[in-house]
């Protein structure tokens, strides 16, 4: 990736949209857990104090209150860090929100290992697995700030429980401002017929970078941004499987229960082809984000290597 890449933090985009939504829709209520200056909800809290509630470091209570507010007709955004917004209150999300299908949007920040120096306790690498295991949830992992803004707006418009996964640091922007988000539809960012890389979140820009490198080596690599993990765009996966014959998945998540899992299940049921994973296989540690991405195998070079493996296995 060249040094002219624009970077922007998805959580900042979230914070901005939340304020706009607050202005447009008096029905929106925001809940936080003593991390509002970090998740982007602070601006909303300042502008709409009567529709903002800080519950402190008590995440189970956040989700239960979110459910109660939703049952009374509110559109609720509940935000904290990914670890504290998924695993900590999982049973509450399941029983109070997912099973009755209430209108709660859990928007978390600081997901993945790019959370960095705080170390493994703070690095959520299993949240996609957890949230996709809730049958009624929509699960979205935006690739960048513009997609975050669009997805948050779509969430506010759509009834039902949503999970949106955001990161801490500024990350490369791959979309234009005003980009339109299509729920449940994979976005083709680059055409190609030799192989397809399906990526989500911060790995989308790595996939694009990898595809550029591969192009220079004569490999026509398709790149799909699978921002909506659930409901899954199986059609796009199958089209890619049929048309390119081999897939690579790239995600900043543990290998179990995330994007690789979803893609492999779709092809297993509909069109078996080789699928090479780029994903985490263990807990990481403290360190700077880019050093961690390198050490734990989540760079553009790792995507290139996976593409090479996939190509060699292509039927």
């Amino acid at each position, binding site marked *: 990736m060249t040094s002219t890449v624009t970077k922007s933090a998805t959580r900042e985009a979230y914070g901005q949209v939340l304020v706009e939504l607050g202005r447009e829709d008096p029905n929106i209520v925001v809940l936080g857990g003593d991390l509002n200056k970090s998740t982007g909800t602070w601006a909303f809290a300042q502008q709409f104090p009567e529709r903002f509630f800080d519950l*402190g470091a008590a995440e189970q209570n956040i*989700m239960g*209150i979110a*459910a109660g507010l939703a049952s009374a007709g509110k559109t609720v955004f509940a935000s904290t860090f990914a670890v504290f917004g998924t695993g900590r209150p999982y049973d*509450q999300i399941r029983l109070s929100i997912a099973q009755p299908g209430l209108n709660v949007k859990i928007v978390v920040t600081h997901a993945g290992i790019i959370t960095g120096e705080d170390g493994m306790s703070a690095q959520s690498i299993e949240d996609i697995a957890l949230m996709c295991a809730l049958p009624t949830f929509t699960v979205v992992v935006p690739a960048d700030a513009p997609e975050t803004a669009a997805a948050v707006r779509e969430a506010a418009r759509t009834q039902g429980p949503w999970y949106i996964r955001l990161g801490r640091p500024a990350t490369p922007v791959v979309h234009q401002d005003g980009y339109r988000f299509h729920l449940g539809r994979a976005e083709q960012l680059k055409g190609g017929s030799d192989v397809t890389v399906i990526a989500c979140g911060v790995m989308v820009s790595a996939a694009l970078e990898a595809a550029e490198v591969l192009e220079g080596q004569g490999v026509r690599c398709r790149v799909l941004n699978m921002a909506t993990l659930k409901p899954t765009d199986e059609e796009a996966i199958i089209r890619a499987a049929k048309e390119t014959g081999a897939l690579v998945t790239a995600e900043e998540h543990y290998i179990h229960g995330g994007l690789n899992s979803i893609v492999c299940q779709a092809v297993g049921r509909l069109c078996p082809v080789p699928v090479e994973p780029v994903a985490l296989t263990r807990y990481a540690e403290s360190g700077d984000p880019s050093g961690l991405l390198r050490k734990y195998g989540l760079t553009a070079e790792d995507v290139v290597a996976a593409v090479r493996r996939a190509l060699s296995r292509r039927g």
Partner: protein
Amino acid sequence: MTNVKHAGAGGKQPATTAASATPAEVSVSPGHARRAEELAERDLKQVARTLRRNILVSIAAAGSGHPGGSLSAVETLVALYYKVMRHDPSNPRWPERDRFVLSKGHAAPVLYAVLADCGYFPPQELLTLRKLDSRLQGHAHIMTPGVEMSAGSLGQGLSFGIGQALAARIDGRAYRVYVLLGDGECDEGQVWEAAMSAAHYRLDNLVAVVDRNRIQNDRFTSEVMELEPLAEKWRAFGWSVEEVDGHSIRDILLALKQAQGVKGKPSCIIAHTVKGKGVSFMENNPAFHGKAPTREELRQALEELGV
């Protein structure tokens, strides 16, 4: 005291008496359909007996379920649904309704018995409890008309009720929220997270009733996990606390009335009850926390209840 809409027009419904009923039949309170203001204490006691019957009949028909904590909560629900809460069985989602949140979702049979008796759904539906394709799930679920919250995993109802109470504040609505908790349920940390936050936000439109029947799933609460001093815990968490005889409808009504006068903080009513109340062999017996009566036990229980 209240603007009870639930009874609708004043027409009587057919009463089923103990004498005419087989153990598998559910009863309907004679006169339940009159305007609730007119219900005298004697009538409410009769309602309570009918509810106990229907709890036992429905659990026996299901072959599984939780009689103990359903029976101990009968008077609390009678006080709320027949005297205090503004609600409308013909419009379960009426925005101004007072809310009842059953946090201890395993006590669904008492809630179903009340809702059926109030007219939210036909009493005969009680016999479908826990069966495939029924609207009456083993643990309360919002699919049932009149049920506010899906429950079953303990400790979650108070948070849910706080959400509803905050919504009332935002919307400038006058409704009040009542949450029923088990005592064993108070083991759960989420209850204390919720308690702390309800006080922080000064939710005086919120009342928690703790069904203090001194028994949880396996054993007595003092054996499993000591809760005392329970009232002091709630007080230290910023709540106004009253302790009452949870089988005296009059006491419960007094405490609920008092709670309406408390300003700037939420109210907790610790209702001292007997688990399995009303059936000699279930009373104070941990074995009947989660076990259905046999046909013979049901017969004996109904005989004791005399309804």
